[in-house]
């Protein structure tokens, strides 16, 4: 079975500062990796995904993530955050062959302060 750990439940950064949200996964095989964002009273929106190839993947709104097989990690980054980035961010994994059934981390609530 696969699992996802997001060690930072709450993160506060100043507007314009850089951001990193950490994600570690546990899986017997290399999973498919995703970052989703959830705004208040909204569903989940896909930010980016990694299936294979270049370990740095670009997503929407300036987000990128880097896959590391040796560290079993898939950290999310953004060079300069905006107040509108305040939301909850979820890392998720999917194991090939199980369809798109996703296992999620507990999420990281990001607050961007002015």
């Amino acid at each position, binding site marked *: 079975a696969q699992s996802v750990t997001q060690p930072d439940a709450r993160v506060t950064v100043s507007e314009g500062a850089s951001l990193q949200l950490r994600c570690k996964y546990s899986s017997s095989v290399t999973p*498919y990796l995703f970052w989703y964002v959830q705004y208040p009273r909204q*569903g989940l929106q896909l930010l980016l995904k990694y299936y294979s190839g270049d370990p740095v993947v670009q997503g929407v709104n300036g987000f990128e993530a880097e896959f590391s097989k040796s560290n079993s990690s898939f950290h999310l980054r953004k060079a300069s955050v905006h107040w509108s980035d305040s939301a909850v961010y979820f890392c998720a994994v999917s194991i090939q062959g199980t*369809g*798109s*059934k*996703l296992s999620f*981390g507990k*999420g990281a609530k990001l607050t961007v302060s002015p």
Partner: protein
Amino acid sequence: NAGVIQTPRHKVTGKGQEATLWCEPISGHSAVFWYRQTIVQGLEFLTYFRNQAPIDDSGMPKERFSAQMPNQSHSTLKIQSTQPQDSAVYLCASSLTGANTEVFFGKGTRLTVV
């Protein structure tokens, strides 16, 4: 494309009553998923249909919960004899195929059992 549509957005039921939640997947999507979101447990997978057939219900509580997909345009999640611990946001999602393609989420139904 209206996205995945979930109705109602909010539902309040009395303890012991039945609750039925509805989901309309994106037209043409063959995979439909149900997840439950709570503060304590986070996002939990419940069940998954592909081409209307149940594929994986490993996350469904064995008692009181059932899900159906009578046609390709809607799925229902039914909770019998609701209990306060069933209070959660129930998210429906769909994807084009089950094989690790992008999953699109609805805005969820917030169920409150009083």
